[in-house]
C-alpha cells in the first residue's frame, strides 16, 4: 500500500467528518443540557445549536464557519513504512479539504499579513507526533476555532497554593472568558510539566470523550468539582445566562519542578470538532469517532 496516498485520503475524510458532525459524546451532552437548562434564553441557544448540528449533518456542511486552525495528532507505529511521507500527506490533505469540504481559509502570515488561502503555512497544519510500537498509524484531526482559543490561559501559580490555586485559576479563566468562547464549553486542564507541557496536555485532554472521567478517582473528583464550579457562574449558553456554561472538564497532569506549578486551561467551544482513524499495515481503515455509512 502507498502510505502517503492512504494517509492523505483518510485525513481528508477525517477533516470532513470533524467539521460536519459532532462526536457522539458532545452531541449527547448538548442534548442533555437542552433538556435540563432552566433559563429560557439559554434553552433557545441550545435549541439553535442542536438544529444547526442536525442541519450540518444532513447537508454535509461545516457546522461553524470558523473551521479553525488544523491540528493533527499522529500515533505512528515504528514499524510502519513510509512514516517520512506522512507530514507531506497531511499538508496535501489540508489543502484538498479546504477546497472540497470546504473549510474557511484561516492561515495568515505573521509578517506578510496574507492569508495563504489553503490553511497551510509555517508550522500549519501543526502535527503532534508520538512513536508507538507496531505497524499501525492512528490519526486524529483537531480543527480548533479562534474564538475559544483566544481565552485559553496559562498560570504559573505558587506551588504553596497547590490544588486550591489550580481551582481558582480555572474558575477565574471561565469568569474572564464570559460569552467570548461560545459556551457551553469544554475545558481541557493541564497541570504540571512546564509552561509548554501543561498547555500541550491541556489541549490533548480535549480529545478524551467528556463522558469518560479520568481513570484516577482523585482526578475524576477534581474534574467534577471544576465542572460544578464553572456551572455555578450562570454565564450560560452563549453568555446569555443559564445553567450550562461548560459541558465537561477533562484534566491531565505531569510531574512538576519543585518550584513550579503550571496550570493551563484549553478552552473549547461547543463545536468540539475531532475525528480519529486507525490505519493498519494491510491498508484497512477503522474510523474511531464517526461511523462511516
Amino acid at each position, binding site marked *: 500500500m502507498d502510505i502517503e496516498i492512504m494517509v492523505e485520503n483518510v485525513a481528508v475524510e477525517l477533516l470532513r467528518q470533524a467539521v460536519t458532525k459532532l462526536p457522539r459524546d458532545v452531541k449527547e451532552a448538548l442534548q442533555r443540557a437542552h433538556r435540563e437548562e432552566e433559563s429560557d*434564553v439559554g434553552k433557545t441557544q441550545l435549541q439553535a445549536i442542536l438544529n*444547526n448540528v442536525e442541519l450540518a449533518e444532513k447537508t454535509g456542511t461545516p457546522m*461553524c*464557519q470558523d473551521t479553525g486552525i488544523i491540528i493533527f495528532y499522529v500515533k505512528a507505529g515504528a514499524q510502519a513504512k513510509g512514516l517520512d511521507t506522512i507530514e507531506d500527506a497531511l499538508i496535501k490533505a489540508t489543502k484538498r479539504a479546504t477546497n472540497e469540504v*470546504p473549510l474557511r481559509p484561516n492561515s495568515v502570515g505573521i509578517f506578510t499579513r496574507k492569508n495563504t488561502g489553503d490553511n497551510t503555512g509555517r508550522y500549519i497544519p501543526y502535527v503532534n507526533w508520538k512513536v508507538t510500537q507496531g505497524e499501525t498509524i492512528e490519526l486524529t484531526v483537531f480543527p480548533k476555532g479562534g474564538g475559544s482559543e483566544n481565552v485559553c490561559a496559562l498560570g504559573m501559580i505558587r506551588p504553596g497554593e497547590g490544588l486550591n490555586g489550580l481551582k481558582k485559576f480555572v474558575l477565574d479563566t471561565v469568569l474572564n472568558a464570559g*460569552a467570548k468562547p461560545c459556551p457551553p464549553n469544554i475545558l481541557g486542564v493541564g497541570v504540571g510539566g512546564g509552561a509548554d507541557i501543561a498547555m500541550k496536555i491541556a489541549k490533548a485532554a480535549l480529545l478524551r470523550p467528556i463522558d469518560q472521567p479520568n481513570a484516577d478517582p482523585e482526578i475524576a473528583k477534581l474534574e467534577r468539582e471544576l465542572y460544578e464550579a464553572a456551572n455555578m457562574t450562570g*454565564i*450560560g449558553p452563549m453568555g*446569555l445566562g443559564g445553567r450550562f456554561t461548560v459541558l465537561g472538564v477533562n484534566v491531565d497532569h505531569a510531574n512538576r519542578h519543585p518550584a513550579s506549578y503550571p496550570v493551563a486551561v484549553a478552552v473549547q467551544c461547543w463545536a468540539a470538532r475531532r475525528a480519529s482513524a486507525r490505519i493498519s499495515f494491510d491498508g484497512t481503515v477503522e474510523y474511531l469517532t464517526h461511523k462511516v455509512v
Partner: protein
Amino acid sequence: MAVYKLKTPISEDAVRKLKVNDVIYVTGTMVTARDSAHKRALEYFKEKKKMPIDLEGLVVFHCGPIVKKEDDKWTVVAAGPTTSTRMDLFEDEFIKAFKVRVVIGKGGMGRRTTEGMKKYGAVYGAFTGGAAVLAAKAIKKVKNVEWFDLGMPEALWILDVENFGPLIVAIDTHGNNLFGEVQKRTEETRPRIYEKLDIPTG
C-alpha cells in the same frame, strides 16, 4: 420573551418597541460587515462618497461567511456570527450615519454601542455563535457583493434573508444590555464559588 417578526426596511419606531430578552426574526435585506467594512464605510461617510448600498432600515450582520461561487453564482455555505466587541470602535457612528436598525452578532457589545443604540434607535440581536448552517439556511440569495477587495470574510455581502433567527434582543433602545446584566450577576457569584471550593480570599 415576546417574539417579533421584522421586515426591512425596519422603522425606528418598530425597534424602539423591543426589549431585551425578546426574540426576533428578520426578513429582507441584510448586509455583512466586519472591522474593515465598518472602517471604510465611515471613511466614505466622512468624505461624502456614495455607499454601494443605502443601509437605512436594514440589518447589519457581524459575519465572515464561507461563500462558494458556482456557475457565476454565489451561495453562502456557512455564515455564523463573529465576535461583536471588535466593532464597538465604530458601531455608534455607523448607526448614526447609516440608520441601520438591527445589528446582529455574538458575544454582545459595550457601553458606547448601548448608548448609540438608545440615541439613534437600533437594537443588537444575538445570534447563536457557530450556528453557521442555521444562518445559511435563512439566507435565500446573495444579491450582491461589494468591497470584495477586502477579502471574502471582510467584504460587504448583500443578502436576501427570510426569518433569520432566532435573535435574542441583547441591547435595546432603552439602555438595557443583557450581556452586561449577565456579566454583573456572574461577577457576584465569584466569592460564593471561591467559598465552595475552599479558596481563601482577601
